[in-house]
């Protein structure tokens, strides 16, 4: 049975086009003080980056605004260089700690750029009064995570600030990885009919941290998925050498990553809602809080775009890896409408999946 959707009047269509045109513009920085929205990864963050950082530091490498900077050494070798700061609260939570995140977050940014992560720096901002025992535990987590990820922490820095000037512990890491000579990944390679895969269940990290704060009186056995993705990314690239583009689905979740893809590749993305992998317990917690798991952060999951003919091999490779048991093909790339992510509901309805406005879960990484 086919049902004709409600017809839209010419006026409504006109409004829709006007809105699309408006959305193509880079957002402008309107505020005169920093609000939490500027750190939430949405449009406010983009406006701040444009108006303050790009304006001041602007260069072609930075302007690409990728997960990492792609650099070519005088020898001709290519390296990827990335940095990230970690301010998660609480600093220890089920499934990991700020130490795991500080290593995984940066090595994953390198891995999804197609690089093999090699070296990390680590900078610590410590609030007066932090227990040295806790610091040792977190540093041990970093050691363990670095060993598993095959990276060395080769330089670092420590600052201690008075009580109240930081919240226990902030960590910054920067990392360098080497890009194999024949590896080219980029949004410009994404084409209609390509398939989009996610390497496992969505939202575990964000909900684990949220619940670990104990503010919600919800008890659920949810652990962070924090993990280094270098290994599973290699398996994927071996099985699907035509892989176009990858990104780890951290802050803003899979929904945000797909929007970034649609915009940077100027393609449409159609998600099959029934295919989205979410643990029932995570789904339940999200439903209670009115949060869409599509927008909840992960720390051990990535999104990959592969050509349709390699999609089954890619899926099999992901599922064969211990970190990818729940991997799924979740979406397809289409030519029209460019820049839009739409979702098909199980009963044939449709809706937009937009960039997230305002972070419902601050300080999760």
């Amino acid at each position, binding site marked *: 049975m086919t049902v004709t*959707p409600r017809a839209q009047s010419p006026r409504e269509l006109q409004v829709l086009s006007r809105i699309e045109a408006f959305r193509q513009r880079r957002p402008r920085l309107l505020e005169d*003080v920093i609000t939490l929205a500027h750190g939430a990864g949405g449009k*406010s963050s983009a406006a701040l980056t444009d108006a303050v950082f790009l304006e001041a530091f602007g260069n072609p490498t930075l302007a690409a605004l990728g997960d990492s900077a792609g650099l070519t050494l005088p020898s001709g070798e290519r390296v990827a260089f990335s940095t990230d700061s970690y301010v998660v609260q609480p600093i220890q939570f089920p499934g990991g700690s700020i130490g795991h995140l500080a290593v995984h977050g940066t090595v994953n940014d390198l891995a999804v750029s197609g690089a093999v992560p090699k070296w990390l720096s680590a900078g610590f901002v410590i609030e007066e009064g932090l227990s040295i025992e806790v610091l040792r535990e977190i540093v041990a987590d970093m050691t363990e995570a670095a060993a598993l990820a095959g990276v060395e922490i080769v330089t670092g820095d420590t600052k201690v600030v008075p009580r109240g000037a930081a919240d226990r512990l902030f960590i910054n890491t920067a990392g360098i990885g080497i890009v194999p000579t024949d590896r080219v990944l980029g949004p410009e390679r994404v084409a209609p009919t390509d398939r989009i895969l996610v390497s496992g269940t969505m939202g575990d990290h964000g909900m684990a941290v949220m619940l670990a704060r104990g503010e919600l009186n919800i008890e659920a056995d949810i652990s962070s998925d924090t993990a280094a993705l270098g290994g599973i990314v290699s398996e994927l690239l071996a099985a699907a050498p035509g892989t176009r583009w990858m990104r780890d689905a951290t802050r803003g979740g899979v929904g945000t990553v797909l929007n970034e893809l649609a915009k940077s590749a100027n393609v449409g993305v159609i998600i099959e809602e029934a295919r989205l992998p979410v643990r029932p317990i995570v789904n339940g917690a999200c439903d209670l809080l009115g949060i869409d798991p599509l927008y909840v952060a992960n720390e051990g999951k990535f999104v990959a775009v592969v050509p349709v003919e390699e999609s089954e091999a890619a899926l099999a490779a992901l599922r064969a890896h211990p970190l990818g048991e729940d991997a799924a093909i979740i979406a397809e790339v289409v030519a029209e409408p460019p820049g839009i992510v739409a979702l098909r509901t199980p009963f044939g309805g449709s809706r937009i999946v937009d960039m997230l406005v305002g972070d419902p879960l601050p300080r999760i990484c």
Partner: protein
Amino acid sequence: MKFVDEFRDPAAARALVRTITELATEDEYKFMEVCGGHTHTIYRHGLEHILPDNIELVHGPGCPVCVIPMGRIDDAIWLAQQEGVIFTTFGDMMRVPGSTGSLLDAKARGADCRFVYSPLDALKIAMENPTKHVVFFAVGFETTAPSTAVTLVRAKQLGVTNFSVFANHVTIVPPIKAILDSPDLRLSGFLGPGHVSTVVGTRPYRFVPEVYGKPMVVAGFEPLDILQSVQMLLKQMAEDRCEVENQYSRVVRPEGNPQALQLLNETMELRPHFEWRGLGFISQSALKVHRDFAEWDAEERFSMPGIRVADPKACQCGEVLKGVIKPWECKVFGTACTPETPIGTCMVSPEGACAAYYNFGRLHRDTAIMVGERAAL
């Protein structure tokens, strides 16, 4: 997910759409869904696009964030800026613009605003910060009012004196009546409020069929609830019946929740009148803290400016709330007013019609057909 998946079953949804299509024999039906929660479900699950062409869903006033007028937000911001005050509220309220920015802006400038999931959390903050005064900015229909009531009782029992409630609770029947009295609208019937009815029951709506001759079906919030309620409305009309029916019987009882109502009676009293965004002043449409609890009433403890502020000229939230215009018909919709830079309340709350349409529904018809009808991956 248990108790949820069964209300999102695709086969059942398709069967309902078939029955709806068969029952909808007239040229045009206009059903108002009263609750913002309904609007959210309709767009989030793409229901607009699977209903037949002759059924239009009109979005109603039941979004608690949306109906708060700007002057009350200004009062809230004023309170938040008072020395020694910790100001608490539900997350959405933080982003609602007042005439000089939102609570979020006030927070960035140094006010101690915190969002809580329950007023009891606000009371807890008060007990943990005895040198501060904690204000809870209470909004919502009869759905959330009982939790404020419980908190007032608890504060009194525990003798917590550094806590007060800035009550902005509203009641559901007066706006429905205001809409029925409005000459602009020709509605065929109502999808009645769901969660409000768990408290007030279904009886207060009897005037809708009896006085105004419109059918009402109290509806749940899952996609199948909405579709089944539309089907029940059509069935009433086909069978020439006009009554209040209860689709959401798994939670709503005809008598509501007498205990909660009793508690509301003890802790709150009707205001003679209250300003609603877009609907203007409606008499006996809102609750204030009862005089027996005056010590915990922020309006008694602080002399707020209480200045009435007209809505921004460009904003047509009022018309949207009354269902007179669709969100996209507002002049600033999607350009000057977006979820990122909202001008009106309807763009702030996820239950607001503008936010729901902008975030989920903003799809070109051809795209909607293409997406909805494509083969599964």
